[in-house]
């Protein structure tokens, strides 16, 4: 017996079965269509976001722990189209508060058709200051109050969003900027250190950015991996010494009307650079103004980035070679009878004043800075092989290896080169026809101040990475001369300076030093009236603790190093001995009451 409504029930069952079957078929079909992968990919977009976490950039400290470079909070400003209701107000507020923001551009972004864009978030500016964001936040609140009062949906800054992030800052402003370089942080993906420490140690300072998936599903959230900040660096630079030499250099340039200049203070025993001033001065907090400060080929740091003919300071190298090789002793004499030295009977070499100085010992040659005497030493005593052997041993013709970016180097013209002529040996002996950087001079002459050991110049003293400190060990580059030769030359240059009653002398301290006046070559030869004036000195002579190199480029007040650079050296050393806590010789050697 059939149940009542049996047919109807059967029909419903069949329809349901067909519908169920159709759903199953459709489910299977969807998984095998060409859209399946797209759908899966789309669904992943809603699962969370892949975010790159950038570690904090490491700090840079001076040798006493004062911060020279660190990070402060800035904000990324963007538009999230999902929440934008009033593009006009967004464009107006952003254009009026944020510099360099254009109303039309912001409006076009804020008014983008939402369904047309894959990515609904636009970055307006990578870094906006906290003050500007505070202004925007206040405006956003004001708009909210107005909407409530007027019971309308406008004006609204809904969709205008900002996220905090760290930006590079240099609390000392221009101080040591030529050493630090700068960090171009505007584009986070391509940001990197430029020049100086920031470039040379970019990888260490940056740390390792890490890509992390951040799920929307809280059930899947896990703690972020422990991302270590970039390594911090402790420099050999002393903030007070750096500040002092920058001020002294600025005053010296103003006084001498020089085009530019450099002062380097180094510890000859370790190669540590205690201060390195170079003009022009630059504020790395506004690194986008770089072109204004360094137009054309102006070097970022003259101390390492400019080569020039040093002039008579190079005589220190020639004399060191002569003493070390044994071809000359302090008592060796040279008779400057005519004031001229003929090279291969073709090229005459004159003294700086064109005069003849009669019989001189080696100290006299250095004291009066006699070109003819040094040419004689190089050509007749050392000869070309030995002379250039020493010049190379002192590191000329190759980079010093200082840990700063963009070190320049001019290749040495050697007798094996087709361009070399015999007069080069004579002119090279007193620092002409040879191009060097100030840091090369400092490195080479440090060997004379450090018992013949030439140390690698460096500006990083310690690296702090993952909570541990690694102290940099001073490295010996070479030992171009013996300790005896170095001490003898130091003694000679101390006596020479005292007997000359140089403007470089510092009361109470024994200083060894040498002036330099380098002629500047033009396309027609050495026709320029302008010169490069320099002075190198170190002290105290019996136990050198500092070496100071001064270079003033094209001063107009005088063309002589003894007039321009020597007093600047004295100014520096008078302040330096106080900052380095070096007592006068009579106190230091315990002879005050004798």
């Amino acid at each position, binding site marked *: 017996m059939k149940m009542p409504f049996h047919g109807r029930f059967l029909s419903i069952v069949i329809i349901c079965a067909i519908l169920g079957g159709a759903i199953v078929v459709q489910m299977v079909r969807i998984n095998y269509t060409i859209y399946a992968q797209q759908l899966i990919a789309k669904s992943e977009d809603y699962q969370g976001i892949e975010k790159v976490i950038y570690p904090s950039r490491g700090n840079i400290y001076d040798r006493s*722990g004062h911060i020279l470079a660190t990070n402060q909070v800035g904000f990324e400003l963007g538009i999230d189209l999902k929440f934008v209701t009033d593009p006009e107000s967004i464009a107006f507020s952003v254009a009026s508060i944020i510099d360099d923001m254009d109303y039309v551009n912001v409006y076009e972004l804020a008014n983008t058709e939402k369904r047309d864009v894959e990515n609904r978030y636009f970055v307006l500016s990578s870094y906006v200051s906290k003050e500007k964001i505070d202004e925007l936040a206040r405006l956003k609140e004001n708009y909210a109050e107005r909407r409530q009062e007027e019971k309308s949906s406008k004006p609204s800054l809904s969709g205008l969003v900002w996220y905090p992030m*760290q930006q590079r800052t240099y609390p*000392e402003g221009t101080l040591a900027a030529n050493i630090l370089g700068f960090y171009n942080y505007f584009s986070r993906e391509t940001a990197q250190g430029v020049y100086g420490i920031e470039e040379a140690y970019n990888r260490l300072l940056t740390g390792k950015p890490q890509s992390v998936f951040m799920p929307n599903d*809280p059930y*899947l959230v896990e703690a972020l991996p422990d991302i270590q900040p970039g390594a911090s660096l402790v420099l050999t630079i002393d903030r007070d010494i750096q500040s002092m030499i920058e001020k002294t250099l600025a005053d010296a340039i103003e006084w001498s009307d020089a085009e530019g200049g450099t002062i380097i203070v180094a510890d000859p025993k370790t190669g540590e650079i205690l201060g390195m001033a170079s003009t022009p001065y630059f504020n790395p907090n506004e690194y986008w103004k770089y072109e204004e400060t360094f137009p054309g080929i102006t070097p970022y740091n003259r101390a390492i980035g400019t080569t020039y003919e040093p002039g008579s300071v190079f005589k220190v190298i020639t004399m060191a070679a002569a003493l070390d090789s044994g071809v000359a002793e302090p008592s060796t004499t040279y008779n400057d009878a005519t004031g001229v030295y003929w090279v291969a009977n073709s090229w005459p070499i004159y003294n700086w004043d064109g005069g003849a100085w009669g019989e001189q010992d080696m100290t006299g040659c250095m004291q009066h800075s006699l070109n003819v005497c040094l040419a004689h030493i190089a050509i007749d005593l050392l000869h070309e092989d030995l002379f250039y052997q020493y010049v190379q041993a002192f590191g000329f013709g190759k980079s010093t290896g200082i840990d700063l970016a963009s070190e320049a180097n001019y290749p040495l013209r050697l007798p094996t080169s087709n361009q070399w002529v015999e007069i080069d040996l004579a002119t090279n002996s007193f620092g002409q026809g040879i191009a060097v950087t100030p840091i090369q001079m400092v490195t080479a002459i440090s060997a004379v101040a450090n018992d013949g050991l030439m140390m690698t110049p460096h500006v990083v003293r310690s690296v*702090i990475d993952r*909570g541990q400190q690694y102290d940099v060990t001073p490295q010996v580059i070479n030992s171009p001369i013996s300790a005896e030769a170095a001490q003898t030359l130091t003694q000679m240059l101390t006596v020479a300076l005292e007997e000359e009653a140089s403007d470089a002398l510092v009361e*109470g301290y024994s200083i060894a030093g040498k002036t330099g006046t380098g002629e500047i070559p033009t396309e027609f030869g050495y026709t320029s009236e302008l010169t490069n004036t320099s002075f190198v000195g170190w002290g105290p002579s019996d136990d050198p603790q500092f070496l100071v190199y001064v270079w003033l480029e094209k001063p107009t007040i005088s063309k002589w190093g003894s007039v321009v650079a020597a007093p600047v050296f004295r100014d520096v050393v008078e302040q330096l001995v106080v900052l380095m806590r070096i007592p006068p010789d009579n106190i230091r050697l315990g002879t005050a009451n004798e």
Partner: protein
Amino acid sequence: MKNQILQAYKQAPWRIQIQWIGLFMLAVVLIAAITGLYLNISAQAATSGRKIQYLESDIEDINNEIADLTTQLAKAQSTKNMRVRAEELGFKMIDPNNAVYLEIPGYDPNANLVLAPPRVNIIAESPIVKSSYKISLWEWFIDQIWQPTINSTGFEGGMLP
């Protein structure tokens, strides 16, 4: 007679119904309990997830604040500011001729600044949370089934001679 005997051992229909209902209710209660347990654990996990997100956000805020305060401190102690403050307090640059030098035993002006402990070999740290606490009961159960037999001496399977 045969029918009567069978009748004697048969349960009363209401009793059978009660048993079925009881079994059904037991199943329902079990499913509800397991579901409730899972819901509770899921809710706790989700809450913990949210807490982690908030804490990560707090960490970022604190790091930003530290960076900001460090910068403020560095600016306040910059050479320029310190000079101005020193001058306001009546300090002057020392005249080297009037300087008094004292010998302080043990003082080394060139001593390295110590901002962190010296470098030592880093020993890999073991994770703080054991892996068994990071997997579900089900995953742990599957792991136990598939894990190869390891005896106390560390040899896989078999017996020592």
